[in-house]
């Protein structure tokens, strides 16, 4: 165990990039992108099966071959009740207590319904789930989620799929400062590697994204770029970034400046 590792519910991970599995041009693109990104955790979902197709089984075999940790989601659920039932179904199929808990409040923003989220977190935690709630930067909701049993929080960067980066860096920075010891993962809204690096430089523990890689012109290359940016941001955070200043400050030593004469000051 080293300080560079990420610990989520007792599981140690070397990678701080968590990748979604949706929207890729092909299953092969998904496999190659996960490898290029170095992800050790991927998200996935449950959807209605069609009689005789077995499409879920094909995807499941493909995912198992990746040999990574699975983080099933409750995407699309709008109530705690639906999310709890979906979680129970996911646990049976995927054989994991981990759950990315999504309870959606609004179709346009896909923002989390924090009230239902807290209720579902409480119930699922009591049932032995290890909940990763998709939430906002709201500190009050965050405290309630932790009280309800969550040990990891996943605030959004921007609405899902928008690629706009960190819309409220002030609030994200505040959240990081307020919960220095809680694993915090920025989930959703990341568009470019620089967005991921910005969150990691703030001290976020990991990044969860899907669209930014899957819909890139070259998903495999973009996964590699995100791997580098997450690592760079983490390293920069550990190296302690300098304070910003209002005034310029020369980096080259002033002492010994050539052609400099005190008499010229007049």
């Amino acid at each position, binding site marked *: 165990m080293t300080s560079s590792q990420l610990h989520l519910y007792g599981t140690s991970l070397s990678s701080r990039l968590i990748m*979604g*599995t*949706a*929207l*890729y041009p092909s299953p092969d693109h*998904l496999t190659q992108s996960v490898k290029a990104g170095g992800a050790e955790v991927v*998200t*996935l*979902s*449950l*959807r*209605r*099966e*069609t*009689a*005789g197709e*077995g*499409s*879920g*089984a094909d*995807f*499941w075999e493909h*995912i198992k071959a990746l040999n990574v940790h699975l983080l*099933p*989601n409750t*995407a699309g659920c709008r109530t705690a*009740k*639906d999310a709890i*039932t*979906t979680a*129970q*179904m*996911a646990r*049976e*199929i*995927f054989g994991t207590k981990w759950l990315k808990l999504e309870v959606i409040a609004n179709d346009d923003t896909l923002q989390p319904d924090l009230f239902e989220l807290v209720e579902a977190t409480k119930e699922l935690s009591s049932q032995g789930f290890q909940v990763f709630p998709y939430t906002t930067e709201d500190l009050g909701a965050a405290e309630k989620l932790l009280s309800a049993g969550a040990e990891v929080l996943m605030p959004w960067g921007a609405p*899902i799929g928008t690629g706009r980066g960190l819309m409220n860096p002030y609030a994200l920075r505040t959240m990081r400062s307020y919960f220095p010891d809680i694993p915090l993962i920025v989930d*959703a809204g990341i568009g470019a590697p620089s967005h991921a690096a910005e969150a990691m430089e703030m001290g976020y523990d990991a990044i969860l994204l*899907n*669209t930014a890689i899957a819909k890139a012109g070259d998903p495999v290359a973009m996964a590699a770029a995100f791997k580098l940016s997450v690592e760079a941001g983490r390293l920069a955070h550990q190296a302690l970034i300098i304070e910003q200043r209002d005034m310029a400050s020369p980096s080259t030593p002033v002492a010994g400046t050539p052609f400099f004469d005190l008499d010229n000051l007049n």
Partner: protein
Amino acid sequence: MNVIVNGKSEEITESTLAALCKRFLDHPHTIATAVNGQFVPVNDRPDYALKEGDKVEILSPRQGG
């Protein structure tokens, strides 16, 4: 009897959830089930008697973000 399977009304002859699931896959461990919003574990499916109007959800793994 008539039940709702994955949102569609269907006339079925199967009497148990396990029997209905056989329409979907030979491998019951790649699907998960719920009836009327309540999770039904795989081991309970053989004894789960379906009733007229039941709402059955049969889900399987998919891509997700």
